[in-house]
């Protein structure tokens, strides 16, 4: 049996997991639930050996599991099926399944026929034949098929522990049914299964026990038979961050940002308005299409239909440059990958979007630049030895503030913030919230994408909830509760009333 004891893990001083102890027995399906960021993925990554916990132990069949080594975790019989399957594009499904174990007899000689036959047999045994052809190439697979390859790969030999991270998010009903059958088979053969999902219906169908995480801590364990959906939802929500938020003013009547029927590859028919001085929260589960919508409004992904208006003027969005010129700013979700020049200074990062305004005859007026950046960095309390300091050496919170300085310098009419406090410590969080409030007070229209419910509730004047690329509801600040937002975000997945 798998025994987790006192697992804690922080990232850059920010606790992701606090003293979690859970058991998972052979022949049992344990569902792991919790909001985005509750610590489920961190827990799975510790099991997988990708993260080393700050404290705590993992035991498997009374043997301590060496932590922090993917190889050893695998050898001990632990298999994690991640949300994003890793597929080698240029080789067949058979090779993808047996990667790492390709030589199936005959020394190092690669026998394609034999491998394909073995893959056929393997898929048949798993009940996935008919859904996946061993001869198909990795690059031709649908997202669902990729997920199935990932599952087949993990089950080349029978594991002791199998963890699945939202395995059905890309599957159709038929594929999901095949997966459920497989999971039950594995359970009955004595595998300990950890199942992470947001889909209540699935959980109640499949799981024997439900463990709920909130803010990195285990807040409840229930036997599925003895609990109900609304109780699980109640356990998932209910954080108290109210002291951190200030919302002091009322929004104008003047509409600044208008989306009319915006449709892209990932979202469809999105219409919404943000008024001057208003903070609108975009809530939803990961994968609901919120970031994709933000990127579409910013001109980073093409619109298939609909239009975006700023101050009533339609803008033609061919690139982010057009959006910026229309007065829109975006602080993207992945700030290291998409926003920061990690090896350049705070100054270079902060002034990047305003260099044109700071330059005379193309020469950057360094004095004006320094004054602007230093002023805003002080206002946002960016903690850095000087503005010449390299951004990669700053903490997550200060990096995020640097991105905010970049957009404040531009004085946008509309500011879109995608997960503005992800990976940010509590102190910096409060400062970022205060900045957002101050910006709104200055008349900026703010759209905040956030997966943290208390944050959305605390910041927003109005909350728009999305699911599967569509808006499923809108709540005013007064109406919104965590339960109601979550109910809208999971609308398709909830079976009964909540």
């Amino acid at each position, binding site marked *: 049996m798998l025994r987790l004891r006192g697992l804690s893990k922080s990232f850059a001083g920010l606790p992701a997991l606090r003293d979690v102890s859970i058991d998972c027995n052979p022949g049992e399906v344990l569902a792991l639930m919790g909001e985005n960021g509750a610590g489920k993925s961190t827990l799975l990554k510790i099991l997988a050996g990708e993260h080393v916990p700050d404290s705590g132990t993992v035991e498997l069949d009374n043997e301590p599991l060496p932590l922090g080594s993917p190889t050893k975790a695998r050898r001990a019989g632990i298999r994690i099926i991640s949300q994003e399957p890793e597929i080698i594009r240029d080789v067949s499904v058979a090779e993808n399944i047996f990667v790492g174990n390709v030589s199936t007899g005959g020394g190092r000689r690669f026998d394609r026929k034999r491998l394909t036959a073995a893959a056929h047999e393997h898929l048949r045994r798993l009940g996935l034949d008919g859904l996946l052809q061993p001869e198909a190439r990795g690059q031709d697979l649908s997202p669902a098929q990729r997920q199935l390859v990932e599952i087949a790969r993990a089950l080349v030999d029978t594991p002791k522990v199998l963890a699945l991270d939202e395995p059905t998010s890309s599957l159709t009903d038929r594929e999901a049914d095949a997966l459920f059958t497989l999971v039950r088979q594995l359970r009955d053969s004595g595998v300990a299964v950890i199942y992470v999902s947001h889909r209540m219906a699935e959980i109640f169908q499949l799981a024997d026990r439900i463990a709920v995480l909130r803010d990195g801590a285990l807040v409840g364990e229930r036997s599925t038979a003895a609990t109900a959906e609304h109780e699980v939802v109640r356990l998932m929500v209910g954080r108290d961050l109210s002291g951190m938020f200030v919302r002091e003013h009322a929004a104008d009547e003047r509409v600044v940002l208008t989306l009319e029927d915006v449709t892209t590859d990932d979202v469809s028919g999105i219409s919404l308005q943000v008024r001057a001085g208003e903070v609108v929260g975009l809530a939803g589960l990961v994968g609901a299409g919120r970031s994709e919508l933000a990127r579409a409004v910013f001109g980073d992904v093409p619109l298939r239909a609909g239009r975006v208006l700023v101050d009533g003027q339609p803008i033609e969005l061919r690139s982010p440059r057009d959006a910026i010129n229309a007065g829109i700013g975006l602080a993207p979700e992945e700030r290291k990958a998409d926003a920061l*020049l990690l090896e350049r200074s705070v100054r270079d990062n902060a002034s990047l979007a305003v260099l044109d305004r700071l330059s005379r005859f193309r020469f*950057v007026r360094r004095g004006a630049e320094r004054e602007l950046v230093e002023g805003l960095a002080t206002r946002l309390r960016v903690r850095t030895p000087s503005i010449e300091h390299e951004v990669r050496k700053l903490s997550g919170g200060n990096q995020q503030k640097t991105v905010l300085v970049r957009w404040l310098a531009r004085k946008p009419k509309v500011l879109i913030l995608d997960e503005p406090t992800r990976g940010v410590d509590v102190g910096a969080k409060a400062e970022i919230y205060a900045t957002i409030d101050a910006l709104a007070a200055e008349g900026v229209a703010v759209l905040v994408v956030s997966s943290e419910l208390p944050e959305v509730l605390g910041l927003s004047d109005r909350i728009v909830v999305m699911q599967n690329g569509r808006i499923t509801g809108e709540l005013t600040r007064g109406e919104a509760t965590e339960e109601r937002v979550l109910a809208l975000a999971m609308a398709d997945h909830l079976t009964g009333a909540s």
Partner: protein
Amino acid sequence: MTQTQNDQRLDHAAEPGAVSTNGAAARFARLRVPFNQNTSLLIALAVLVTIIGVQAPEFFGSANLRTIGTTIAIAGVLAVAQTIVIIIGGLDISVGSITGLTSVTCAMVFTSAGGPFPGLLSALAAGLACGLVNGLIIVYGRVNPVIATLATLAAYKGIAQLISDGRAQGYVGADPIFIFIARGSIAGIPTLIWVFALIAVAAHVLLKYTDIGRNLYAIGGNDKAARLAGVNLNRYIIAAYCLTGAVAGFAGILLTAKTGSGQPVSGSEGLELYSITAAALGGCAMQGGRGTIPGTVLALVLLGVLENGLNILGVNSFWQNVAKGTLLVAAVVIQQRRSGERRIGLPR
């Protein structure tokens, strides 16, 4: 990145945790060089100059110093251009061929037009056109810059040989302008060195003090971030290759003046690798975003001194190549250590 995760998951690759706690290799990996690239280059230069100077005092003679300067001038011009392209995360290995093509163009236009200025302008225009073609292929053909300029390296060389019939063209050695470029001097410093110095200073100012330079560094440092901050990537990338082509046109002019005629191939072959060597030695990161003109210039001086010193000391020229190669590897390894590059998977 995906590949790396893949490898880890499938247990092929070393584990990050294990590497950093494991033996001498890890200690070496954690080693940080305490000073910056330029300081290391200056120290290397000082050591080299001392060793050579002690054994051969004639090294310090003004004639010899002039020789070093004029030797590095042509390759130096190309190294400056290369620095700019590498900063945006690209590479231009066609610069040598462009130099040959513009040299031939310059001499042939000079001969047929009967004056130096049409020749000079045609060289610059031809260089600019070559650079534009490179940029268009890379941006709109979505071709990796190494492959794109590898192709144009061959193509431009071929065009130069076609129009020149493979032979040196024209004779410019009697024209006062070309004589001035090749052998003249201002304030005791040869014109070749002046041209190189002016181009280097202009590039330095562009990179360091203008918004264009900032955007070039931003593109090389993180192109997605640059795009999301409103930088027009395509325009900048094409412009950088155009600039490189035009600067290679200057190199072509210098080559023509120095040799007295248009040289389609000989005289410019190998300069592309020399220019990349100098830029890398000078601290340019091949993935872009890092590098400076002063660094490249210092590296050029170091390479020039090395070559010249070994000549004076009578070292076999085959050994000189080995020395150059060793120096480059040492410099780049030190640079990687300092930047704390990830230690699993292949370097990018």
